[in-house]
């Protein structure tokens, strides 16, 4: 045992006990990216707030201001009636728009195959969250913004990219899928929700058009091995490496996502 190192580690991990959890570091990275996006949206004049799992907003003076992340097994959205002790999210409304959006962390989506897929960060219409919070469940369809956060020591491989492409493929609902999935007349690209026929939420006719109608981001704390970015162009995945606290790469990431939101989300 190295006493001086152990003393320092005992203080660090004693005071920041989430670092004793196997996935604690990964969740911190996700929170860093999530809050970076939220701050950038706030700076741009959009309305941004923190939301508990019972759908209440966190306000100054509230007796508890706990922003909760899940560390257990992946899950969908719990019912609001189960209280405020489940995962928090961040809500936002673009300036001049009536549409509200939610930024989720670590929520499982249901794919067309029936398999569940966790997205580290997902931006979805508020209507989807609102509907799910009635009785709980998993969203079905593709988030408008999906961010994969990799907080590992090694450089990103092309296998990681394949995994994200496969996940996005399975959650994509195209117009042609409606018949196979018995989805009925509603042509929307994510369920459950009612968008009142707003064409923005309609599913597209090809994967490429859907890829370009959403934002797909792969964020790594470390870098990408040479060649790992080869699949990103065709599948419209934005790779961001070396994202750490205070880095230029982090600023570029937050700015790029906010630019896309400004230009594309209603």
């Amino acid at each position: 045992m190295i006493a001086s190192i152990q003393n320092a580690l005992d203080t660090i991990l004693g005071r920041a006990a989430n670092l004793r959890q196997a996935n604690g570091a990964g969740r911190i990275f996700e929170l860093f990216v999530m809050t970076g996006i939220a701050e950038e949206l706030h700076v741009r004049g959009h309305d941004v707030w923190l939301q508990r799992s019972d759908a209440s907003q966190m306000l100054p003076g509230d007796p508890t201001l706990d922003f909760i992340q899940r560390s257990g097994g992946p899950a969908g959205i719990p019912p609001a009636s189960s209280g405020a002790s489940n995962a928090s999210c961040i809500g936002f409304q673009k300036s001049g728009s009536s549409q509200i959006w939610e930024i989720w962390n670590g929520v499982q989506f249901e794919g067309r195959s029936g398999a569940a897929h966790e997205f580290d960060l997902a931006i979805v219409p508020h209507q989807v969250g609102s509907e799910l919070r009635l009785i709980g469940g998993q969203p079905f369809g593709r988030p408008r913004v999906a961010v994969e956060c990799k907080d590992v020591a090694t450089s990103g491989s092309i296998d990681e990219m394949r995994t994200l492409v496969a996940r996005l493929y399975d959650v994509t609902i195209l117009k042609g899928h409606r018949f196979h999935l018995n989805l009925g007349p509603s042509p929307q690209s994510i369920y459950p929700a009612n968008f009142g026929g707003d064409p923005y939420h309609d599913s597209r006719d090809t994967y490429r058009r859907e890829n370009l109608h959403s934002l797909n981001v792969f964020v790594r704390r470390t870098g990408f091995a040479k060649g790992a970015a080869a699949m990103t162009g065709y599948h419209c995945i934005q790779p961001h490496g070396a994202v750490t606290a205070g880095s230029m790469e982090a600023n570029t990431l937050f700015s790029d996502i906010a630019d896309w939101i400004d230009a594309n989300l209603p």
Partner: protein
Amino acid sequence: MATLDPRLLELFETLVESGADWLVFELMEGINAGIVVEETADDLASARILASQERESPRPVERVALNLESWPLKGNDQIVWAARYVDGRLKDLLAMMKASADRLSMLVDRRGDIGTKERRSSVTLALRGDDEVIAVRPEGLADAQSAVIELYVGLDSWVRKVTDGRQTL
């Protein structure tokens, strides 16, 4: 497969004893991977442009089906890499936690008296598992950050000792 330098076992044992066994796994993964040739910042910026284009650009042949290029970390290089990794990893994690907590607190305050510059709210970061909730409050985070210097000194001293003074952090 890389060969693990046995001098690292003392560091691994200390990390496990402190509850940071996940850091041991990361160190072993990093050492096993060695130094890997990576996409440059320009490569990634170009890839992001391609990813947002309506029509696919002609494919740059040299970027397809490349083999992973890497070289192993050996001897004292492995020791220094591991010590720097532990130091940088914890320092960066605490900085990300601090930045996140500050942003969350700012967002809560802006829901109140808009225009008030005085900071009042302190959001607690909570990690909820199946059986327990771990809460990290701002004062705890500050204490943890203050121990980072002590960690650096300890790691530097260990690197000097096991490399017979040939290397420093």
